[in-house]
């Protein structure tokens, strides 16, 4: 129920507060009612047709580094 997927913003419709996001080959229109300052190329966490949050590329990199360094 709480599943949500990260998808890339490929178009923004400012007038309707909507964006088109791409997840692989799939495109979907989602509401931006819950997030501010969305830009083209951002990754958004998508849940039931809404963007919940932005995904931070820097933090994602940092977490991946943690995995690689674990136990060293």
């Amino acid at each position, binding site marked *: *129920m709480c599943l949500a*997927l990260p998808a890339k913003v490929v178009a923004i419709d400012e007038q309707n507060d909507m964006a088109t996001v791409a997840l692989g080959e799939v495109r979907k229109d989602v509401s931006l*009612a819950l997030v501010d300052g969305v830009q083209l190329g951002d990754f958004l*966490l998508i849940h039931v047709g809404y963007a919940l949050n932005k995904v931070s590329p820097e933090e994602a990199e940092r*977490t991946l580094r943690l995995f690689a360094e*674990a136990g060293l």
Partner: protein
Amino acid sequence: MKYIEEFRRHDLAQHLAAAIEKEVKPDRGYHLMEFCGGHTHAIFRYGVQDLMPPNVSFVHGPGCPVCVLPIGRIDNGIQLALEQEVILCTYGDLLRVPASGRKSLLKVKAEGADVRMVYSTQDALRIARENPEREVVFFAIGFETTTPPTAVAIKQAHAEGLKNFSVFCNHVLTPAAIQNILESPEVREMGSVSIDGFFGPSHVSSIIGSQPYEFFAEEFQRPVVIAGFEPLDVMQSALMLVRQLNEGRHEVENEYTRVVSREGNRKAQALVAEVMELRRSFEWRGLGLVPYSALQIKKTYARFDAEKRFQVPAIQASDVKGCECPRILRGVKKPTDCKLFGTVCTPENPMGSCMVSSEGACAAYWSYGRFRH
């Protein structure tokens, strides 16, 4: 797909498994409760349990909104569709959950009730616009992740002056449920359930932040690590919990920093706070009545509240005889302890909610076949 595949990498999983193996102390157990069905699903789908040392075990929690919704509320939904003849919109997860009298929303739909599966609250609003002569009720379920989209829909209906749209609100709150589990006699006194630490919710926390867990990490002296839903996230979080337990710490740590902050999504929180307020008490399957554990629609938006607009009586309905869902939801029993599991209760023909929802513990055990070893 970016931010998905790299969090499922085999080589890094092996690496994390070795790190956990190295850090666990052989003379103690590590009983880690994953609150969310999303974590249960990741653990089973990717075989995370098999990568853990034998003294690290996962205890499955009640974090599946479909699983914890009491049967009486589904009976209410069926009444709305059948007796009030509304168009009842809901997420697909809820359609097959068994209600009283061997009914389900899907069965009454087959019998002619106008039940419609929607992907988004936006779909429910569209159906209301397209059917101005009909009453349209959105049967809202879900934790904090799913609540803001419902709040947005109510605000939008208000702004548009939609007169035929309302919400049957069943949104529930995660911290109240975790606290209830920690206060249960099984954990506190009887000691029949050991919980040494928690995997904190991923997407619930993207909305509420990591701050709300600080109280019970301190109060109940259990570490919490907010964990993403991918298998490597779960493994890294297990490592962080093992370290905290080894060092005698009980803090809230955040593994899922790419999405979760301490304060969460303030905009979403403000929208929910504008439209909804706490219920004094709400019934959870398995946990019973839990104080301040759910939301209701505020008086200012009462005309969008299906419970004010229609007759929605409190219905006491009992679970299917022999179904262990309530104990499974509290972590007291495992799906394989239930006599119905895999005999009369399967995902094709579910008797209990934990088998219906793909996030339920029973469905996870059955679908990935891991109980067979």
